[in-house]
């Protein structure tokens, strides 16, 4: 009998340990338990300052800054931060501590960090890629209206009122924008200038047909090169739409590809959908053609290759990303594949009608709603952003170790070893042009070529103050995201059969998912926004 009962006991234990592995459905609930309401956070802070207006820094505090990126492992970061903290300690009796949200599964980790209720002092935000308005709606950030003038006066005064206006949720400032930093994150194809020349393309490529010609040349003449070793995670419909329509992107995510856009810059408050325009059919047809011609792998949908690494190794002829990436990649390519003359075809080039400046809240910093030391956090931020010495330390490292300035350009000192001396802090929460030192690792002709081209056609970003309240259509938006994820990749890589039929099915599924309801809601909110802007 003993044996039988122990066998049963053993099997129960085994089974329960198995059940434990799969029973993580409560994972979502746990952090929420510890989340306590803290509406009074900003009022509490008043008590800790003395009435005379002077700031009390007698108590030493640690300020955490949450950034996105993989934690550096070579010890250089700690050294640099040590330098920063010497100054911090002296000036505001505080110390900075970096917390890293690593790239693996970063969306989940970022949102969980905010939801968990742990006290976050400073955190990187981005309205167009970190769901900042959604998090603001969920109460993740502290209102800064009263704190800023007192504790971050330099920052507060240097940012103009219209930029503060774009930093408000429900009329309250919830973030500090990166409003004074030039960068372009409009996407495009990167292609090799040398191969394009061989293919007889002498002018810069300005449309997708040109890219098609280029890829066809590689296909026909270079048997060992995959013309474009694409991965299906790369979504190009937004780019195609930028090339062949006047539509403007909206700060609303519908997952794999954009379902909603604004009609054009002149009709910027009219919502339309590129998916329901001819653009979609044209795109699907072209991509089917490209797939059939073998421009990418047959198994593109399951391909997990690193396209950029392939490009640098000379195994593929094309890559897709934004201008900022191109600036660095061009220099690397000149080293890895000498004479490759990497070029970029920015999608907006084709029509030149729909390039808007980057939203100033693409990067920025917020104070967590549960921060225990918001005053000192803002003081620290004020120093990072306005003290040249600290700024250079945090962005570039220690002069003489990480960089030296020669002829006004940053370059690596002799004997610099990337693994040993490499440094980055991933501070994207308030860089400023005035402290930036140009680097030799960024292509030096970027400004005279692409930037100059953009400057000719750029338009101001019109949706800085538009905050889409998803609440009424949460379920529909989720369903639409599912549909774009389900149908998008196959259509984008010509694997959905007959393109016209596939687009038809895609549209039908979007309709079932509640496309019309979201469109109506979006238009309604856009009308209200129009009133706000035009008075």
């Amino acid at each position, binding site marked *: *009998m*003993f*044996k039988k*009962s*122990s066998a*049963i*006991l053993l*099997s129960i234990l*085994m*089974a*329960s340990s*198995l*059940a*434990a592995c*799969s*029973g993580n*459905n*409560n994972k*979502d*609930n746990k952090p*929420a*338990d510890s*989340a306590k*309401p803290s*509406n009074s956070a900003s009022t509490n802070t008043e008590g800790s300052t003395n009435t005379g207006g002077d700031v009390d820094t007698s108590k030493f505090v640690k300020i955490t800054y949450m950034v996105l990126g993989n934690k550096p492992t070579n010890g250089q970061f700690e050294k640099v931060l040590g330098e920063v903290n010497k100054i911090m300690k002296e000036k505001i009796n505080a110390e900075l501590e970096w917390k890293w949200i690593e790239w693996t599964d970063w*969306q*989940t980790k970022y949102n969980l960090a*905010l939801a968990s*209720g742990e006290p976050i002092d400073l955190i990187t935000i981005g309205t167009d890629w970190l769901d900042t308005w*959604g998090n603001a709606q*969920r*109460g*993740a950030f502290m209102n800064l209206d009263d704190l800023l003038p007192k504790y971050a006066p330099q920052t507060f005064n240097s940012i103009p009122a219209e930029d503060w206006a774009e930093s408000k949720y429900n009329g309250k400032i919830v973030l500090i924008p990166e409003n004074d930093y030039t960068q372009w994150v409009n996407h495009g194809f990167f292609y090799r200038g040398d191969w394009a020349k061989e293919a007889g393309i002498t002018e810069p490529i300005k449309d997708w047909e040109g890219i098609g010609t280029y890829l066809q040349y590689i296909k026909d003449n270079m048997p060992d090169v995959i013309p474009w070793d694409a991965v*299906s*995670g790369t979504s190009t419909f937004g780019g195609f739409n930028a090339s062949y329509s006047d539509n403007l992107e909206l700060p609303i*995510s519908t*997952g794999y590809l954009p379902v909603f856009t604004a009609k054009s810059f002149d009709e910027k408050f009219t919502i339309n959908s590129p998916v329901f325009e001819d653009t979609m059919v044209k795109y699907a047809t072209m991509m089917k053609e490209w797939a059939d011609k073998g421009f990418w*792998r*047959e*198994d593109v*949908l*399951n391909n*997990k290759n690193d396209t950029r690494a392939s490009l640098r190794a000379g195994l593929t002829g094309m890559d897709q990303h934004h201008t900022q990436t191109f600036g660095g990649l061009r220099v690397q390519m000149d080293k890895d594949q000498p004479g490759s003359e990497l070029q970029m075809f920015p999608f907006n080039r084709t029509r030149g009608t729909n390039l808007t400046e980057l939203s100033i809240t693409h990067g920025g910093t917020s104070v967590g*709603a549960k921060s225990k030391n918001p005053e000192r956090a803002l003081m620290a931020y004020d120093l990072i952003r306005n003290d040249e010495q600290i700024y250079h330390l945090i962005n570039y490292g220690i002069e003489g170790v990480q960089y030296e300035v020669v002829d006004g350009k940053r370059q690596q000192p002799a004997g610099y070893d990337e693994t040993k001396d490499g440094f980055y802090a991933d501070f994207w929460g308030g860089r400023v042009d005035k402290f930036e030192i140009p680097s030799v690792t960024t292509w030096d002709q970027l400004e005279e070529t692409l930037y100059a081209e953009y400057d000719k056609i750029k338009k101001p970003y019109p949706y800085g103050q538009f905050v889409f309240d998803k609440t009424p259509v*949460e*379920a529909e938006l*989720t*369903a639409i*995201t*599912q*549909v774009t*994820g*389900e*149908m*998008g990749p*196959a259509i984008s890589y010509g*694997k959905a059969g007959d393109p016209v039929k596939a687009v038809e099915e895609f549209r039908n*599924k979007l309709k*079932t*998912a509640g496309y019309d309801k979201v469109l109506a809601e979006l238009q309604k909110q856009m009308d209200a926004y129009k009133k706000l802007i035009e008075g």
Partner: protein
Amino acid sequence: MEKVIQPAIQSKPRTESSGRLRRFWNNKTLLLMCLPAIAFFIVFAYLPMPGVYLAFIQYNYADGIFKSPFVAFDNFRFLVMNGDLWRLTFNTVAYNLVFIVLGNVLQIFVAILLNELRRKWFKKVAQTLMFLPHFISAVLIGLIAYNILSYDYGLLNHVLASFGMDPVKTYSNAAIWPFIIVFTFLWQSTGYGSIVYFAAIMGLDNEIIEASEIDGANAFQRIIYIIIPWLKPTFIILLLFSLGGILKGNFGLFYNLVGANNTQLYATTDIIETYVFRSLMTNFNFSIGSAVSLYQSVFGFVIVITANWLVKKASPENSLF
């Protein structure tokens, strides 16, 4: 010894309380051994239970769980809206049924084979080799599968080509994926799962086997009339346990084998987990996530109760409660 242990697994308590107390004391070692498991379930299963309320609210970080606005069944709406719920539930349940039935049958089979092996070193080696796949992460399995099945560079198509045959497009043929997935699952889980059955066979009293040998039973008769009936309670318990999770898909396996973007295979490979992952990856939403998990749990609960009731009808001594 036997008498002392026996009551611990009896489900019906005695009426006198003093007897109960003594029994409690007598079994203190066994109970102590259960303590980690009990603590685990209290912490990870019972304490978070009020959290299911999350499924009915529109969760707001600042307000917390119990102050966020109540929205009743709004969060469940997206599941039924596309009309995909039936297909997903069917896929998930069908896969899990196959996993459970084939998995257990194969595990019993392997356990019996192991038991029949006489050479000790061979038994150990075989056990270890079958055990190994359990420790390979799904991500790696996905990569291995891709390197075998890929159209342009896969091992399979190289082999086919060397025999002068046409290459196959595995990644665009939905019909064969159920087989690939089931095969991979069995490959990964059989060795590990057979341990439970093997342990149960070990618990079989040798005297019974010897008696049967004296009576002239051959190996097959021994298996069919002694070992398999002996394994029945273990099988039923494991079955009931796995039925509870029948609506919970093996996300890692499906996601890594099929990939996030291969629409062509969704008809036969999309399960609730992958669907939800696709929907909520970009719109981080606790409440809808909880709603889905509640649906799975309630469904699983109903199935366990029903299955247990059926078992009780058929053979009362084997039911869980």
